[in-house]
């Protein structure tokens, strides 16, 4: 087997694993996504968000005051942090809800 073929196998394998992983995840995520929509203005979400904020957002750097950014800026910043800090979507959503309620 040539080097090139081994490369292709590697790539193919990675792609297959990724796809399998993703499709399994999509089915898992469908239900919580609906739940998330239903709990939009839930005060419990803000409480959960406050806790998740305290637990996650001071791990790498100081906490910023919720007042420092606007609602729209928090949307993008927390989306940014969701990737950087490997956060679950639900946690990121709770944190955004808390930040928007407190700014």
């Amino acid at each position: 087997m040539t080097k090139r073929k081994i490369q292709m196998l590697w790539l193919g394998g990675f792609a297959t694993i990724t796809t399998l992983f993703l499709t399994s995840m999509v089915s898992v995520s469908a239900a919580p996504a609906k739940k998330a929509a239903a709990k939009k203005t839930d005060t419990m979400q803000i409480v959960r968000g406050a806790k998740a904020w305290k637990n996650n957002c001071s791990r790498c750097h100081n906490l910023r005051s919720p007042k420092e950014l606007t609602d729209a800026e928090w949307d993008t910043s927390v989306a940014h942090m969701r990737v950087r800090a490997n956060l679950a979507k639900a946690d990121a959503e709770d944190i955004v809800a808390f930040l928007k309620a407190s700014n």
Partner: protein
Amino acid sequence: MKNLLLGSSMMFIATLGATPSMAQIGEGLVSEGQISENLASQQLLARIISLEEELASLRTAVQQSTQNAAIAREKADIAVATVTKVETKIVKVEKKAKSATYSGSESDAKWHLAGYADVGFVGSNNASGNDSFVTGKFNPGFHFQYKDLLMFESELEFVTNSDGETTTELEYSQINLFLNDYATLVVGKFLSPIGQFQERLHPSWINKIQGAPAGFGHDGLQPTSDTGIQLRGSLPVGETRLAYTLMMGNGPRLTSESAVDTEGTGRDDNSNKSFGGRLGYFPTPNIEIGGSFLTAKVNSYMDPAAGLPFVPTGPTDSRYKLWGVDGAYTKGAIAARFEYLNSTRASLFTVTDDEPLGEIVPTLDMEAWYGQISYRLSNVGGSDFIKRLEPVIRYGQFRINGQDELAEENAQNRFNIGLNYWLSPTIVTKAGLEWRNSIVAGVDSETRYQFQVSYGF
């Protein structure tokens, strides 16, 4: 008769004596009507005067209140005008806000400009090192988000180097595709997810000490970035969670010193991809324990201008392996971190600075670690000034085996102490001392004095 006379004279006298009183009575009787008339008219007069006075004061009061009313009306008119002006302004601002910078939280597309900048001063006791102001960095970061679906993020780095030249680098430029609750696909040029320093701690408003630990910076053992794809996210594990990042990229290249180039490249020098990742586990929210690895094939260094001037006498590619463990404890004002990285580049035939025609270079082993503790005095009683202070201490080591020049330059024990003053959660002034003790015998050690101001925005 004498008695009569006496009596009548006495009466006369008595009458005389009584005259005034009689006269008084007479007078009184006569003018009583006049007096009461006088009194009544005087009372009337007084009443009229007081009424007049009252009237006058009422008149002035009325005048005043009319005046006041006029002023009030004027003021009200001004107020109405101002309100109208403010209203039109608000409408304008709203219009502007909708069309410009932050496109309202209801809109689908949003963007945000962030990043950081720092300036500083470094002094050294080393004969070759001059005390100098360092321009530091300006790193603008751009985030564009479309709904919950996608985010493009990119960061540039502007630095003026010691020759006065300003360089621009693309720190990273990646598209994040939010796949589902637990996974995000990253495509593009990204910061190395290996360990914790590169991806999380290097921005100067986050880094508690000016400069990276030995071995973790741009001359270190770890690629700082790579170009490729990542799959990353978080998985629930009971009550705790597992953070995962898997990556595949072009992989690192060799430098003319036969070490690994730390900067990620836009084109692979071989079709063999680098493969790696990191797992981070959180037993409690305050503790993270991580493990990382990276494996890649590296090809022998070639000066692109020189072409292929050599006839290889050994393999022209070899394997580069990197692994590491890291840990962090962060609770309130305390942050304690530890990180260890170990890399091996196997022996190969390559062109080096010393051998332009190529030579077989031995295996290159590198090892770097640091431990760091910082404590913000925010809970310590005392003045506001003290509460903003944060002492920090870091000790680390960088070992290099297999390349003597690199070892002379970089292999060292590095000890830092510093005192930070936080003006805000993202604006910090750092003052520190750094001791660099070379591990290689005969190389001078160095003491540095560092001062830096950094702002994360």
